[in-house]
């Protein structure tokens, strides 16, 4: 029998070995600046006494988002405080916020690019497919190699995981804008940039906001998995529970994640819904 084996693993190892020596300085620099960003984020969240944080967030949501939701959030956060998981919750929240911001920062412009040029879409779509279907454990390893154990590596993993929905939904939202709108805008002499700014983006906003919501949820789910590479937060509690077969601790951490998920999802969904309602005021 002929010995036939494609040496993808060897080649990959080889490439990464070389890559590391080349781009290590770059990733190191990037790593330290990202770390600063993350630390600020977390420090800011932990700066507040928990009770004050709960009250302020509750009030903001009460006045700007939704009253019922505000009460729910207040109780859930008091619950987290009662479980003595406050610091972990804030750590997860900080990582999710940073991950989401970073994903949107790249995702929305890439989505816009894909919506404007068919060629760009053709190139970008398979990359997104790749990013979304590649099992996360596969890129956790290189993330650690490039950025070291810790939150920055977690952030890189989050970026890979949470970027695709932001790109896809931005692209979709813009492409779904009815052609007659584009035609009307063109007929009155809009430039391409004006069409994008005045017509396409505003009309795509509800879809883009759905993308933001997806992005947040993906960030959260990855931040839990990334506990394995030192992301900390609630994910670490769950991981520890798994390692020590501590069902109780697992329940606490798990519930905490559910609570954070619901809070982030409801707030972002409510905002997305409102941007849609603002568009379709038909009453």
């Amino acid at each position, binding site marked *: 029998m002929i010995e036939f084996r494609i040496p993808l693993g060897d080649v990959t190892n080889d490439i990464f070995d070389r890559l590391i020596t080349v781009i290590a300085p770059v990733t190191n620099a990037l790593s330290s600046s990202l770390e600063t960003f993350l630390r600020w984020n977390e420090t800011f969240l932990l700066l507040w006494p928990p009770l004050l944080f709960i009250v302020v967030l509750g009030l903001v949501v009460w006045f700007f988002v939704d009253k019922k939701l505000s009460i729910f959030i207040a109780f859930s956060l008091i619950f987290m405080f009662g479980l003595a998981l406050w610091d972990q919750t804030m750590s997860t929240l900080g990582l999710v916020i940073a991950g989401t911001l970073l994903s949107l920062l790249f995702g929305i412009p890439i989505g816009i690019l894909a919506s404007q040029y068919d060629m760009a879409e053709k190139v970008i779509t398979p990359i997104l497919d790749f990013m979304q279907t590649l099992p996360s454990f596969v890129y956790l390893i290189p993330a650690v190699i490039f950025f070291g154990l810790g939150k920055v590596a977690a952030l890189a993993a989050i970026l890979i995981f949470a970027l695709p929905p932001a790109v896809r939904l931005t692209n979709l939202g813009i492409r779904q804008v009815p052609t007659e709108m584009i035609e009307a805008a063109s*007929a009155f002499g809009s430039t391409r940039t004006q069409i994008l700014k*005045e017509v396409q983006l505003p009309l795509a906003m509800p879809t883009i906001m759905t993308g933001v919501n997806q992005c947040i949820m993906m960030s959260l789910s990855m931040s839990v998995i990334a506990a394995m590479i030192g992301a900390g937060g609630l994910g670490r509690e769950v991981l520890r529970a798994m390692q020590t077969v501590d069902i109780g601790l697992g329940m606490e951490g798990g519930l905490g994640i559910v609570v954070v998920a619901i809070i982030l999802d409801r707030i972002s969904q409510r905002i997305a819904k409102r941007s849609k309602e603002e*568009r379709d005021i038909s009453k």
Partner: protein
Amino acid sequence: MVIEKIEIKNLYKIFGPHPEKAVDLLKSSKNKDEILSKTKNVVGLNNVSLSIKSGEIFVVMGLSGSGKSTLARCINRLIEPTSGEIYIDGENITAMSYNELLQVRRNKIGMVFQSFALFPHLNLLDNVAYGLKVQGVPVAKRHEKAAQALKGVGLSGWEKHYPQQLSGGMRQRVGLARALANDPGILLMDEAFSALDPLIRQDMQDELMNMQGKMNKTIVFITHDLNEALKLGDRIALMKDGKINQVGTPEEILNQPATKYVARFVEGVDKTRVFTAAHVMKKPSPLLYAKDGPRVALLRMNEVGISSIFVVDKQKKIQGLLYADKAAEALRAGEDTVISYLDTDYAKVAPETYISDMFDMMATVQGPVAVASPDDHLLGIIVRGTIFAALSGGESPL
């Protein structure tokens, strides 16, 4: 040389992979279906040449797929023509750079869409001001102009509402206001009223005619509705398969169809809503002058076998209608003139009255109906037979 407002020369538009090849095939007089099966190209416009005069309502009519909307979109190059030229005010649109084209779209052409195409995220004022905004007109100024345009279409007070809150007719008024806000010379109206209810549609047609009376734009109006075309159009171009079959006034289209297709198209038209009294009236002969006596009157009536005759003065001003029995009475009484025997309560219509509006009168009236100018000068007469003759045949009654 007179520069036409819009001049279209040998315009072709081919959709598909090899447009130039298809143009060559068209020039060697292959037809649309042959080209589709041979080259997978769809013919949108096939050698269209037109000139549209300043201030006229030019209707492009055809069924769906005839290329009429494509033609409209070529004028502002929303669709790029494959070959041929379009001139607006003598300037070659087809040769323009993108930036020059933007200026033409901003300053010279307004467009109204079948689906209204209003921006759902903007209120009416901002919708109407959109064209001015992209030109960089400051906000106060553009809102002022937009408010004026809205007022012009009767929507004052609705500035802060959103398009979704409006009925179809109102939305299209906004569409019209938006197209007029920066006062362009040309208005492209692509099936502008086709999506409206019949009654609202008629109102909008009337209003457009009214507005046109004041603003005197060059309007290119696309429609598939022949009645709409006949009502609005100063001239009509009838299209089929991307080709123009005939260009002419509504009367020409109806009375002298250039092709079988046009003839078939206009066959079902309710001519009573197109033809007016002036179209169907007969020459008023014989006539009786006020000086003539009863003997002459009876003689004239006898000659052509009629039982009544109009009496006019020297300026052809109508004096009245004389019936044969009255003339005989005058003769027996030994009168010199018939003046005192005239029926002055005769039926009378203005020349621009539509035939459809004359049916009731024709049903009750005894003798002929006079077609008279406002100062009662006799222009012609109509009897029931004239109308039937005009409606039955393709022959022009004139």
